[in-house]
């Protein structure tokens, strides 16, 4: 028997299903069996319609209310599982809320969670998750032992989202059990930061800066270049850790995974931590003073030079072209 039922933890933002959720639904379809979604947010009917298009036949809706989703959604999932409605496999995005729900559910059910997956396969009852480690140069296959449900988290952009042509998913409202103080992380207010230009993980061009910039104020060059190329600015962990730019800019293992048409790495040496987040780019340009920097081993065009000299000239040339 292969996988007979897969759940996907569904996420949304402002009434729109998150791309990662659509990617996971597409993969769940490929595994065969029934695909169902589990959702903890608002606008259930609109979300169910979008989820249906990508293959979910049912959407369990557990309204988490104004608290963080981790505890209430995990409790609602566990209640369904304990009542006998048990999937073989539950897929989560390696996202803020995906981690919270999967972590809580893992502890609640006393089942391991395999994290940072880039692929999953099922052979009979054996479910195997693939990870890319050491900056993506080594692939590791890990199989679940013991009984399901198996919990697995996947990095965004591991699968391409494709519609399956289904109608709206049937909405099944499920209760949220009392989670006591554990479920009392109350969201008081949401701040949406002003944003111009494309989102980092959706941009066709990404320009990232690293420690080679030398000083926080030099990051402005990166923003200018990104703007001229209608792209998004990104950053290495080093300059996020140094407090030059916020965490939301970070590309890499602990940040965003990007797969743009063009990725420009400026003053980034290319630690494995960074490579894992950008080596899926179609074209990579690297500018770095150190000719032995690991970033050059994966760059399509490598410039051995000083970012402080190359980028201002590049900005000037691009501006001149209009």
């Amino acid at each position, binding site marked *: 028997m292969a996988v007979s039922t897969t759940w996907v933890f569904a996420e949304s933002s402002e009434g729109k299903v998150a791309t990662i959720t659509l990617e996971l639904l597409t993969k769940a379809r490929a595994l065969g069996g029934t695909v169902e979604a589990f959702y903890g947010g608002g606008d259930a009917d609109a979300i169910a319609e979008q989820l249906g298009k990508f293959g979910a036949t049912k959407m369990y809706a557990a309204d988490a209310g104004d608290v963080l989703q981790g505890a209430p959604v995990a409790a609602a999932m566990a209640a369904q599982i304990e009542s006998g409605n048990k999937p073989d496999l539950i897929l989560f995005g390696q996202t803020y809320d995906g981690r919270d729900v999967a972590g809580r559910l893992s502890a609640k059910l006393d089942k391991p969670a395999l994290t940072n997956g880039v692929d999953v396969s099922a052979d009979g009852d054996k479910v195997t998750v693939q990870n890319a480690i050491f900056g993506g140069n080594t692939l590791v296959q890990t199989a*679940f032992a013991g009984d399901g449900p198996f919990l697995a988290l996947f990095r965004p952009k591991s699968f391409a989202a494709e519609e399956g042509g289904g109608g709206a998913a049937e909405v099944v409202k499920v209760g949220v059990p009392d989670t006591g*103080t554990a479920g009392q992380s109350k969201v008081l207010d949401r701040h*949406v930061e002003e944003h111009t230009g494309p989102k980092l993980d959706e941009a066709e061009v990404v320009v990232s800066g690293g420690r080679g910039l030398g000083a926080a104020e030099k990051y402005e060059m990166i923003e200018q270049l990104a703007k001229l190329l209608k792209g998004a600015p990104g950053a290495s962990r080093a300059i996020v850790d140094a407090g030059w730019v916020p965490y939301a800019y970070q590309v890499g293992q*602990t940040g965003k995974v990007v797969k743009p048409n063009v990725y420009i790495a400026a003053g980034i040496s290319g630690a494995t931590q960074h490579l894992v987040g950008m080596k899926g780019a179609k*074209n990579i340009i690297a500018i770095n003073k150190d000719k032995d920097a690991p970033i050059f081993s994966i760059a399509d065009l*490598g410039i051995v030079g000083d970012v402080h000299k190359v980028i201002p000239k590049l900005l000037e040339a691009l501006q001149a072209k209009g």
Partner: protein
Amino acid sequence: MPPHMNVVVCAKQIPDPAAPGELDPNTKTLKREGKLILDDSDAYGVEMGLQLADKAGGGEVTLISMAPNSEVSGLRTALAMGAAKAILVSDEALQGTDSLGTAKVLAAAIKRAEPDLVLTATESTDGYTGVLPAQVAEILGWPSITFAKHIEVADGTAKVQRQTEEGYDEVEASLPAIVSVTAGVVEPRYPSFKGIMAAKNKPVDEVKITDLGLSADDVGWKGARQEIVDVSPAEERQAGEIVEDEGDAHERIVQFLEKLKVI
């Protein structure tokens, strides 16, 4: 605000991330040989803990760490920053422990320390599963707030700015709670010479898993309930053209972008 604010910071000791990682060919786990250092990601939690205890007007930071072979060099760094003491869970049975097993161990150690607040990194640099804070919180039955960029504590409540895809949420939870701290949100202090000297004499309480009421089945390979079935090299990306800048390298970039019709 409690007159004293005791904070536990979960601190991981890892191989230097600058050195290339390697898998043990037999166990297929990360090699953790040689000197271990304090995970950079945890320095932010230590700093945040010290600041919160300071603001509360009293209290201390206790480190909790798990390591298979009595390793303390990374903990000494955090003690030198100002943490008061450490609990080190060191046991041969821990070899191969996954994230849930680690959460069981840390939760049991946290119960011993009875803190007001537990701080962790959002994920470790070497294992980076990112699910541990939620697992620990669930085992303890505590609220958790992950991806904090700012924390304030007042009247038994933690108010946190939590990173989101669009910006941040203001989230509040009653104490005791677990908060995971995003890197870069505070500037970790450098240990002073005095701090480094004092750290040598600060207490590190080394315990075994049985001291925490856990058995070998909860942790290690057996507890992990997963099996690495294959390790293989990924398809390598080839290096392209490397150009030394002689004042005109920007033209090469322009040509490259033109060829791709990006400009």
